[in-house]
């Protein structure tokens, strides 16, 4: 940002402002507005208000609900503002104010930067600070784009299982999941081999672990935030085909245009309605994928381990267990703008420092402001 003296120089309207004519008054008013908009004082006042609002609001929100921030991180910001913030009003008022102040701050920064380019574009001095401004503007633009267009989802996958990620037009398959343990036997990391499908063909694949997610474009699959082992399928005895194995994403033809597949599982200790885990929800479908019948089979006391499904006798054999993980998938279309912005911002700090130390040719000490 430049000082007021330079801003006054830019407008060059001092004489016109005072000539008393209508156009002179208008130009004077516009010049004044421009001065205020590009003044560092405007930015500083907005910054102070932003800091006070965020500081007080963040502490109050924490004391109202210590998990407030964790819940907020589950959504892209735009979605949170649309769906959650109105329900929380007036407790969310400070976030509405924060958004308004953020946009005002960005407008102030943008105008300051434009002013610099209009007035001093041929001067090396001060370029570092302008790069910092530009970088920050790009970061903010990236944040706005990511918040508006981004998506987040969570998929639970057992080893071998393939699932669609709703809204992102892709499917994930977990090929393998290994738990890395410390020498003391404490789990410290996971290694997950993931395949990503788009239109039923492999789009990308890779191994992910902590700090090394699978990234392609603006979409990222993160290591599982929760994992364990549990029931993922089992052996089912049928009256028409003998024993068949049901597992995640796998259906078995019974002949006569009918298939048997797994509708879901309950783990030990889990309960849904009258169903008690562990157990399998078995589905019988016709050739068009329409449901003919379903049943829940479980070895738990009081639960059925066999049933009749539209003339097919099904009996639960043994349950199979495997490792599963809960994977987060994020899409953020603004992230590359943010990364380019951080690089420019970082370079700007180096340039500014060099200018401050007088390293740059033609730039004396103390140029940083």
């Amino acid at each position: 940002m430049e000082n007021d003296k330079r801003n006054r120089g830019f407008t060059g309207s001092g004489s016109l402002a005072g000539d008393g004519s209508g156009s002179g008054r208008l130009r004077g008013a516009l010049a004044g507005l421009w001065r205020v908009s590009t003044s560092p004082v405007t930015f500083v006042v907005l910054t102070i208000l932003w800091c006070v609002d965020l500081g007080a609001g963040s502490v109050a929100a924490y004391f109202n609900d210590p998990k407030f921030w964790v819940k907020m991180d589950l959504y892209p910001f735009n979605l949170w503002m649309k769906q959650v913030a109105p329900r929380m009003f007036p407790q969310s008022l400070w976030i509405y104010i924060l958004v308004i102040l953020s946009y005002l701050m960005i407008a102030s920064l943008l105008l300051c930067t434009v002013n610099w380019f209009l007035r001093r574009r041929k001067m090396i001095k001060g370029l570092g600070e302008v790069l910092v401004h530009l970088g920050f503007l790009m970061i903010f633009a990236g944040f706005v784009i990511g918040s508006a267009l981004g998506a987040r989802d969570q998929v639970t996958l057992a080893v071998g299982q393939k699932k669609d990620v709703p809204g992102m037009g892709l499917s994930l398959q977990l090929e393998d999941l290994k738990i890395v343990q410390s020498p003391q036997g404490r789990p410290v990391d996971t290694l997950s081999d993931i395949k990503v499908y788009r239109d039923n063909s492999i789009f990308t694949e890779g191994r992910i672990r902590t700090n090394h997610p699978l990234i392609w474009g603006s979409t990222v699959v993160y290591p599982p935030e929760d994992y364990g082992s549990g029931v993922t399928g089992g052996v089912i005895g049928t009256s028409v085909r003998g024993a068949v194995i049901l597992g995640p994403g796998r259906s078995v033809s019974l002949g006569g245009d009918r298939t048997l597949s797994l509708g879901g599982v309950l783990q030990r200790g889990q309960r849904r309605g009258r169903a008690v885990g562990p157990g399998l929800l078995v589905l019988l479908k016709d050739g068009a994928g329409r449901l003919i019948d379903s049943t829940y089979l479980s070895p738990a006391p009081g639960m059925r381990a066999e049933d009749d499904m539209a003339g097919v006798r099904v009996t639960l054999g043994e349950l199979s267990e495997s490792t599963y993980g809960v994977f987060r998938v994020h899409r953020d279309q603004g992230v590359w703008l943010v990364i380019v912005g951080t690089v420019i911002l970082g370079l700007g700090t180096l340039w500014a420092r060099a200018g401050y130390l007088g390293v740059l040719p033609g730039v004396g000490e103390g140029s940083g402001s």
Partner: protein
Amino acid sequence: MESTTLALHTSSLVFYGVSLGVYFVTRATRALPQKIAVWPALAGLFCQLVLLLIRWKAGDHLPVTGLFETQQFLALWVIIAALYFAFRYWAYNFFPAAVGLAIAALVFASRGPMAVTPLTPAIDTPLFLIHIATSFAAYGLFGVAALVGVYRLMGWSGSPINAERRMIDESIYLGYILFTWAMIAGSLWAYLAWGSYWTWRIKGLWSWILWFYYSGVLHVRNRSGWHGWPLDILAIVGFVLTLFTYLGLGLLFKTSHPLL
């Protein structure tokens, strides 16, 4: 390793204590120049640097994890800044304040475990090391700026050539640049590890408050009306904010950046 750490840590504390003692004795007696207080401080700095290198080699990573190492790093930067000011601006009168701050950081460091521990996968990334190293270097420089602010407010002479304004500028400017890098590295790390470069967590939010605060300070520091006591107050308030962001949040809230 722990005995070596303890020996070097204690030695640096003793040397800094001696430096303070020498300063006050020479000031009272005027028998010797006050600048000789720099030499014990240089010995203390040497001990700290040796400790840093030994722990770096033992742990195979820059030792900036945990309370002990981060406070050591903060003290290191405070001493380096004080020595730089002493040699460049003859700021020997400012020396005891900076050494006092370094001693406070080292005493606080003593509360943390001194064992060298391997990095867990979550923090085994250069981004983490850059994030922490630059954060604590910036904290140290913001502390130095606040001390210079106190000197100016109280009317004490820190430098015989009246370079206090220059000292406050340099501390805030370099501190801000380092803190910017800390924010950049932290955000990239958060993106790779947790899925977003921006998280709505109280530590991150207050770090942004701190960054914007010093952005504001940089914007007003050269404006007329802000050269004198307002800038000193801003530097002091900035360090109070820094302490709250680092210590206050760690003690009062359950954060993503635990203190111990």
